[in-house]
């Protein structure tokens, strides 16, 4: 097709409405640097951007700004040893691998390696990076409490939890097979007094590793343990079965 025949398809292309044949043609024109198509698509993108600008105005919470900036090292001093690398290299897949390896420093290298490997399987890299960014922020918080679970002769799920009063809970596990169809893992905070508090649903990866971040403030002193149960896919307001994981937090008088 020549550019004339593509008239009227540029906006469809930008909106994701073009037929496969026209889409392919437009991509080919772009690949060979067709200036007509570049210009027409520019106009179509402007139109799309203007439609996007008509969304009803809403104000994001102020914490979101802090969260985004923290993830690129604006609060580098607070975030500890990995911040300089972070700041220089930006958030790259490589640096995430390095951070995981550095963090475990040989303590649980197999788990670290599994996490690095599992990263490859994640289709949307950005989602994974966002999650890891938050994970490292919790790991590195000066006021973070840490506990391990799954030490025993059998092969239960094992790993570690990190609880930060301001940022939330990070759970890293291995040997945790993906929850079967219709089921999900649910995390709980077990308070010193009262009923378990639901702390979100998550799934593990096919290789049995899981990295789950539950954002939000946590009353660490009032919490005995972090637990995980296998629940129906919608989750439950209270645990319905015995936990697979219980990570007791160090007693904090």
């Amino acid at each position, binding site marked *: 097709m020549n550019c004339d025949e593509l008239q009227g398809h540029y906006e469809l292309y930008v909106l994701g409405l073009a037929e496969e044949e026209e889409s392919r043609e437009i991509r080919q024109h772009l690949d060979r640097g067709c200036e007509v198509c570049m210009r027409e698509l520019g106009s179509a993108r*402007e*139109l799309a951007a203007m*439609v996007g*600008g008509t969304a009803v*105005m809403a104000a994001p*919470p102020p914490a979101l*700004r802090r*969260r985004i*900036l923290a993830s690129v090292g604006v609060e580098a001093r607070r975030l500890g040893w990995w911040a300089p690398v972070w700041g220089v290299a930006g958030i790259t897949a490589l640096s995430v691998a390095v951070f995981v390896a550095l963090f475990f420093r040989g303590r649980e290298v197999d788990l670290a390696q599994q996490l690095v490997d599992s990263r490859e399987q994640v289709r949307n890299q950005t989602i994974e990076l966002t999650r890891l960014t938050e994970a490292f922020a919790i790991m590195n918080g000066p006021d973070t409490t840490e506990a391990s679970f799954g030490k025993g002769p059998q092969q239960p799920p094992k790993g570690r939890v990190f609880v930060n009063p301001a940022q939330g809970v990070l759970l890293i596990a291995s040997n945790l097979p993906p929850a079967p169809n219709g089921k999900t893992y649910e995390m709980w905070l077990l308070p010193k007094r009262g009923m378990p508090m639901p702390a979100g649903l998550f799934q593990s990866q096919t290789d049995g590793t899981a990295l789950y971040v539950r954002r939000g403030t946590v009353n660490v002193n009032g919490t005995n343990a972090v637990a995980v149960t296998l629940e129906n896919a919608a989750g439950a307001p209270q645990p319905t079965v015995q936990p697979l994981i219980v990570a007791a937090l160090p007693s904090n008088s």
Partner: protein
Amino acid sequence: MTLLPLIMAVEVEGEAELVKRLQRRDPQALAALYDRYGRLVYSLILRVVRDTGVAEDLVQETFLRVWNRVQGFDAERGAVGPWLLAVARNRAIDYLRSTVGKARNSLEMEATEHPALFSDMEKDILATDKARQIKAALEKLSAHQRQVIELAYFEGLSQTEMAERMGQPLGTVKTWVRAALKNLRNELGTAVAI
């Protein structure tokens, strides 16, 4: 589903310098970018996903994605606002479709948000007077024409999916889409001319 205009006083002056600072990995530049576009990006994503928690996560992804890919952006000739909105829309639509098990073609998404594609666009496309023009242009469309544009842009529906959703023949939907785009093009002719 009426469209209320988001009146944007987006300041584009000094944007080339801002992009260069982002390319030098200056985190304060990301703060400036967020202050300029954070509301707009959040509003767009929230309009698509209709869940504030999800919207916050996707706004973060959007800004991190831009931060990570800004080296491919042309600081002098690029229009950063439209790029951010394209990235934001892709994240939001991708999320929406993943919740119903209809993943989008990642090649297609990549082809719509590559930083190099946002060169030589009018830079102040998100300025206040342009917002008025698009609002006026959308108001001139018939209700069906406006609806198909909204379903395409904010919900990422294909024409076939729109036909199902609206209970209309595919041919009718295609006619509305083409008429809507033609009308918008004509109304905004002066606004989008390069």
